């Protein structure tokens, strides 16, 4: 059936003649109308998929804003959690998030970028290296809660770090490490081979090439990738929930050995409280969290656009 259908467009006249010989006239014209309607119908349907996605996003933002804007003021930013919704604030979680993010960056950047440099510039084409690479992409797909289990068993218990900022940062480091490695590798790969060849031709050794040619070119890409990885860490709740637990903190960590809470954990805490007032507090916390993520992402995009060179 399908193949016998007359084509649309310019060849329509001839095909209509052909169709009138082989088949009753109406089938040719109704089929082409049907195909045109089907085309339009599915166009609407495909566009609707996009529209539903965007509407979902809009509904989420509006839902959070209407619930939370009323509770958002300076005292919310500057207060500790409280049993009374009206007096609750996000100070401890905000500073906890800063601690964890800085701690994660301190470990994840050197380890991640180091791994990427090794894999891209030094590692031989060997089965063990390919296994390491495969392992990294598998780690990127491990559910975040599994990193929570690992952090709990390894850092909190075995290393006896307790539920500290340090234990949280190390757990988060393992979680974002695959992302940092992969984005750094992409940035290093994007540096054209000719640049390296030119430096080698001038007599530079591997190290000098990496230090003076590859890294300066790759750093904007690496930076924006790292910021995106860190913004993943800022929003990640599951492992932090396991490491920090739902504590009622009325202080800011003053050393890496102190207990902590982070924004997503604090928000989860408020969301799970049944008293109605806490929904508004949770929304206000979400607005702060989204604002932090939005600024991090804007910085990453700005770096990419500002420093990106096309070859």
């Amino acid at each position, binding site marked *: 059936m399908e193949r016998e259908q007359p*084509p*649309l467009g310019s*060849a329509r006249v001839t095909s209509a003649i052909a169709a009138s010989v082989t088949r009753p006239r109406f089938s040719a014209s109704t089929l082409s109308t049907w*195909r045109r309607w*089907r085309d339009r119908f*599915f*166009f609407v349907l*495909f*566009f609707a*998929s*996009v529209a539903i*996605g*965007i509407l*979902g*996003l809009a*509904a*989420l933002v509006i*839902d*959070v804003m209407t619930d939370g804007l009323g509770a958002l003021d300076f005292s919310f930013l500057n207060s500790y959690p409280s049993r009374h919704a009206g007096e609750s604030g996000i100070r401890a979680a905000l500073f906890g998030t800063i601690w964890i993010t800085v701690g994660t960056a301190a470990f994840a950047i*050197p380890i*991640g970028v*180091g*791994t990427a*440099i*090794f894999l891209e510039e*030094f*590692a031989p084409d060997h089965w063990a290296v390919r296994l390491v690479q495969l392992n990294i992409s*598998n780690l990127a*797909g*491990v*559910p975040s*809660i*599994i*990193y*929570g*289990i*690992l952090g709990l*068993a*390894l850092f909190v*218990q075995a290393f006896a770090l307790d539920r500290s900022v340090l234990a949280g940062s190390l757990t988060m480091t*393992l979680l974002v*490490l*695959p992302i940092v490695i992969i984005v750094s590798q992409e940035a290093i790969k994007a540096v054209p081979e000719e640049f390296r060849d030119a430096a080698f031709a001038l007599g530079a050794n591997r*190290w000098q090439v990496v230090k003076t040619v590859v890294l300066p070119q790759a750093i904007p890409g690496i930076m924006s990738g790292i910021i995106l990885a860190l913004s993943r860490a*800022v*929003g990640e*709740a*599951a492992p932090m*929930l*396991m490491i920090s*637990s739902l504590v009622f903190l009325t202080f800011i960590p003053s050393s890496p050995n102190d207990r902590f809470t982070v924004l*997503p954990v604090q*928000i*989860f805490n408020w*969301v*799970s409280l049944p008293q109605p007032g806490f929904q508004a507090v949770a*929304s206000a916390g*979400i607005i702060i969290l*989204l604002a932090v993520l939005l600024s991090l*992402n804007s910085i990453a995009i700005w770096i990419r656009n500002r420093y990106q060179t096309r070859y």
Partner: protein
Amino acid sequence: MLVVLLLATLVSVLATVGIIYTLLRESYGFFQVVSVWEFIAGTRWAPLFEPQAFGVLPLIAGTLLAAGIAGIVALTLGLGAAIYLSEYAPDRVRRIIKPVLEVLAGIPTVVYGFFALSFVTPLLQSFLPIPVIFNVLSAGIVMGLMIMPMVSTLSEDAMVAVPRELRDAAYALGATRFEVATKVVVPAALPGIVAAFILALSRAIGETLIVTIAAGATPNLTLNPLESIQTMTAYIVQVSLGETPQGTLVFKTIFAVGLLLFLMTLIMNIVGRWVVRRYTERY
């Protein structure tokens, strides 16, 4: 200096070793007391109550039900969006819509959990008989919204890779855009689409916060999307937040459940990548 780089590289290897070692060691302790068969085939999960029961099937059912709903939502919306973006949308529109959709993938899961509980559940309750506030349908739908950009981006990448000549040939034969999309582009890009779907499902299976907040904490062997359930991830959160002393049998359950979760997502990720490598057409 090269040694330092090598040591950095070893960290990621040690992370894997650490995950597998930790999960296996504690699970071993658990399986000394509870038989593997009782764990895998048991239909009642109640480690926190007397009489205790350690059948993980209700948790698996809950996890798969939530991920299944998310998968249906994400495949429908994601594939539709991918076809629109790759076959219909003018370049200018595409450049605006794509990043907006990808914002969905960057929103923290705790925010989605709140959205499910405070917006989607009341909306569903207005026309569906949902007995308690916690239900897997709401969590699944929201999770589908979360993984939709993953399906659409990966599928669109696969579709864009289909050569122009194939489309032009079909258009020259008089095909409509819909026919080109569904009979030429989608079949040619199918491995990429299947892989996108598998990887997105694996994300949904490992997702924690949405199901913990919106789907409840009732291990429940059911296929009814209106009921409250508990997923594997939500159970792990429940125990680690509770008063369970470390080292007890109940505490060890999170490692056994974690091991199962790790294996499920690992297999799906490997299969997803294998599908792409094995079946991708090279033009």
